[in-house]
């Protein structure tokens, strides 16, 4: 309940923030929403020497579609900004489905999308969404900006590919080539619980056929599981009951769930398969809602 002592900095510019990370010798931690970092500090699982609060840096709280359809989400975009966003509701179904399921409504008012990616919790909802959407993270350090594909961004539980003196400033979801559709389903025993299993599905459809399919899972392995290969059987196909069943089975097969008190590994695979089926079925028949 009581964090250990730390130094606090509240830079007003990005350059200042990066300079603080650079001079911090790896003992600094960026504070954005704080809804993952602060709970860990209160339990003394995390004890950075210096906390760099980026909430006072202007120009980071945005989410928008570029004219070409690229979706950009700034470092201080809160989960609820996406949950209540008209443009997301209209234009990005996977994110629209996942946003209400992140944590709880009060945490969503403060926690950030990008911060959640940087926290790299293997059960994180947004990591799965980003993998399914083939997203990238824009990262900035003293040497400048670079972009890291989401699948290369997370190295392991709570570990990212960022250098100690880099911070994530934006998440980028590439413009869809076809009509973008998607969904997200999560089995949680109650609001705010860790996922027993969850699936992010993002497909793009042109002329009734799938031109791109991304699927990723959380809660069924020590990391986010990228099932895009398993989903590739959909490419070039229409969403028929048979195709859906095939991909659902293939996706469940690449999950790596552990048997524990939330269920056996077979059970978790069953959830994955059921959720993939339901999401794809509702995409194929928009009148039937996935639940």
């Amino acid at each position, binding site marked *: *309940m*009581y964090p*250990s*002592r730390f130094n606090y900095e509240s830079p007003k510019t990005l350059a200042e923030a990066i300079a603080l990370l650079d001079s911090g010798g790896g003992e600094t931690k960026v504070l954005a929403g704080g809804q993952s970092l602060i709970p860990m500090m209160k339990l*003394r699982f995390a004890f950075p020497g210096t906390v760099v609060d980026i909430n006072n840096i202007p120009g980071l709280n945005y989410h928008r579609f570029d004219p070409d359809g690229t979706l950009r989400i700034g470092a201080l975009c809160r989960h609820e900004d996406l949950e209540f966003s008209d443009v997301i509701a209209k234009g990005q179904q996977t994110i629209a489905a996942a946003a209400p399921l992140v944590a*709880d409504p009060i945490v969503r008012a403060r926690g950030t999308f990008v911060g959640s990616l940087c926290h790299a919790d293997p059960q994180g909802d947004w990591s799965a969404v980003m993998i399914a959407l083939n997203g990238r993270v824009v990262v900035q350090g003293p040497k400048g900006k670079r972009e890291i594909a989401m699948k290369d961004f997370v190295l392991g539980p709570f570990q990212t590919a960022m250098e100690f003196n880099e911070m994530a400033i934006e998440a980028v979801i590439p413009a869809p080539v076809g009509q973008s559709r998607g969904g997200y389903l999560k*089995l949680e*025993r*109650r*609001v*705010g*619980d*860790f996922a*027993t299993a969850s699936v992010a599905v993002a497909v793009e459809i042109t002329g009734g056929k799938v031109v791109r399919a991304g699927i990723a899972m959380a809660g069924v392995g020590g990391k986010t599981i990228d099932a895009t290969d398993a989903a590739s059987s959909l490419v070039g196909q229409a969403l028929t009951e048979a195709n859906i069943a095939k991909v659902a089975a293939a996706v469940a097969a690449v999950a790596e769930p*552990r*048997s*524990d*008190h*939330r*269920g*056996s*590994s077979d*059970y978790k695979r*069953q*959830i994955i398969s*059921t959720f993939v089926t339901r999401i794809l079925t509702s995409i194929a028949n928009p009148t039937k809602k996935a639940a």
Partner: protein
Amino acid sequence: MALDEIKIGGMGASRRRVEDNRFIRGKGNYVDDIVLPDMLHMEILRSPVAHARIKSIDVSKAWDTPGVRLVLTGEMMAARNLAWMPTLSYDTQAVLATDKVRFQGQEVCAVIADDPYIAKDACSKIVVDYEILPAIVNPLQAADPASVLIRDDKENQPGNKVFDWEIGDKAGTDKAFAAADKISKIELHYPRTHPSPLECCGSIADYDRATGKLTVYMTSQAPHIVRAAVALVAELPEHQIRIVSPDIGGGFGNKVPIYPGYVISILASILTEKPVKWIEDKTGNLISTGFGRDVYLKGELALRKDGRILGVRMNTISDHGAFFSDAQPSKFKIGLMHSAFACYDIPVAHMMSTGYYTNKAPGGVAYRCSFRVTEAMFFQERMVQAAADDLGMDQAEFRRINFVKDDEFPHRTAFGFLTDSGQYGKCLEIGLEAIGYKNFAKEKAEAASRGRLLGIGISTMTEPLGAGNSREYDILGIKMFDSAELRVHMSGKALLRTGAKSQGQGHETTWAQIVAHELGIPAEDIVVEEGDTDTAPFGMGTYASRSTPVAGAAVAMVARKIRAKARKIAAHLLEVSEEDIEWELGRFYVRSNQDRGVTIQECAMAAYSNMPDGMEPGLENNAYYDPPNLTWPFACYIAKVEIDPETGVWDVLQFVAVDDCGVRINPMIVEGQIMGGLTEAYAMANMQYITYDEEGNCIGANYMDFLLPTAWETPGFELYEVVTPCPHHPIGAKGVGECATVGGPAAFVNAVMDALKDKGVRNIDMPLMPNRVYEALTTGKDIYGMPPVRVGN
């Protein structure tokens, strides 16, 4: 004219609560809100391991932390004879560990510092060298004679057994079973869970060396019991101890026991000569304080082929953790488990109970359970469900034919309780009608066509509330009466104090309603106080739904004493003899001339200014009530659930609660209690449990693992009422606070089992998490025990 009882806030009025006025403004006065001058803060260092010998403790770095005033170890406590304290069940419990730690989370050291952050810093600098011992995490292991001895601190403790207890007629029961047409058997585990009120436990101990008085502000449901215990443990004189329970943020039984933290804070105050505040965190609360349940049952019903139950056999094994600290009437080792089957007319029964020590948090009786009646009624209704299924009988019909009938009271149950009233059949009929029982087959078929499994679960019971009569009930030898003191001032306004202690039940509102009912003083003219042992009359506190039955009765009795005196004053004022006086609400009048009368307020004024000759002045009195019997509320709870067979997730489509708690003082408050209890029932049935891995690590020591349902998961509840006044209670009321937690869980579980009946599943132990339901319905196999913490991949 008699006053309108509802208008003055008497019985039956859904009077809005007095307590709310401060709570909605954020002006509650909980223990952590209280600040005393020069107050210090205490943090407890807890054991990270379940069972280990303590080889050494190095507190030097803690002492060196700036701002630290005192560091306490078990050795220092032992030097003052305070390393161990008695429990409410005649066992002993470690205050700070000396030789060994016996459960994960056990208190090892305490740091007292200028602020809680510093105290926590210092705690993390304490180094303890543990020599790990094997951990015993269930009674089966505990019973093994080769297992390690947990309580090697006790003399004459040969193994890990706490007690053996037996009740009923073994020979008669064996005979009944021998003659049975069918025997229905079931094995159940009621998992360990926790009351987990939102506010954690805490105390502020303030020892004043100048006066020798110890004041302790404390989260206690029973401040007078604490005063007696502190006098015993701290060897301070009872009249120099003041326990103050201010506002309490939920109790549910968790705040009845006396925890080491309280005792340590008292010693710390004595040693530092300053007030010491100890507020535990949620982990401390979940990992170390009074939990609930953790009982295994082997149950059997001897059945006649027409559906009559001929006999009951119950064999329970209970897990008490490292210390036997159950808060329950001392005569009953397994609480009132033998109240099971009280609503059914059964000739003979037998129960054997064994309790064991394990390397887990101590306790077992807490959590809105009426002293293990939660276990009794859950086991009962699961056994009844299984028996009806085994006979191929309709669930409602099986209960109907076995109920004690309305005209069969008083009724002596097979285990020896005396029930005095009931309309069990009526409750059931109302519930069945409300849930649409007749139409269910159709609904079930319609759901099946959508690929969903529907089930209905019934739970009916009567339970004993209001412990209890002095012949049979005591805690540590102190009888379980309760009290009320009423002072009517000269203006007719009044002050009422009782020995109960509300933690959200609304006593400040409801006790005034009883006085309004008896005396016609408007409820808003009556202020109610509880919780300060310096001012409150002696009582045994509020838990086990005993307050309305016992303290509420005392309130009625003291009001009647006041009214009897006021009647004499009225006769004096009206210049007639007492025999000519009649009473109507708020007023005495002359029978032969009804226009001539005096109000209760006029009598009050006269008590101070115009007394009859020879009468003691004033209008104040008290009453101590020894209840002649327990009260017997009863209920029928019915759940209708729908299972998604692809995921095992089940939703509650409808839940009906029919409760008879006798005369309802405040219907709004009664309904609030029922809804709260049903939510806890739902929680236990669905998600809320504590378990341990094989090393004794506790899973469920924070709100990420110990799951409470939110407003999103929690179903809505339809409430109905039946009123059968309690024949012996002065106002015909019964207890109600725990009925829903007692009867509720079986309704949910029975409903899921009903939905899975065709799959060949007979039992899934709680919590009925989706994976367990899925596993059962796909394999057709029962699911026993707690969810496994780790299973091979």
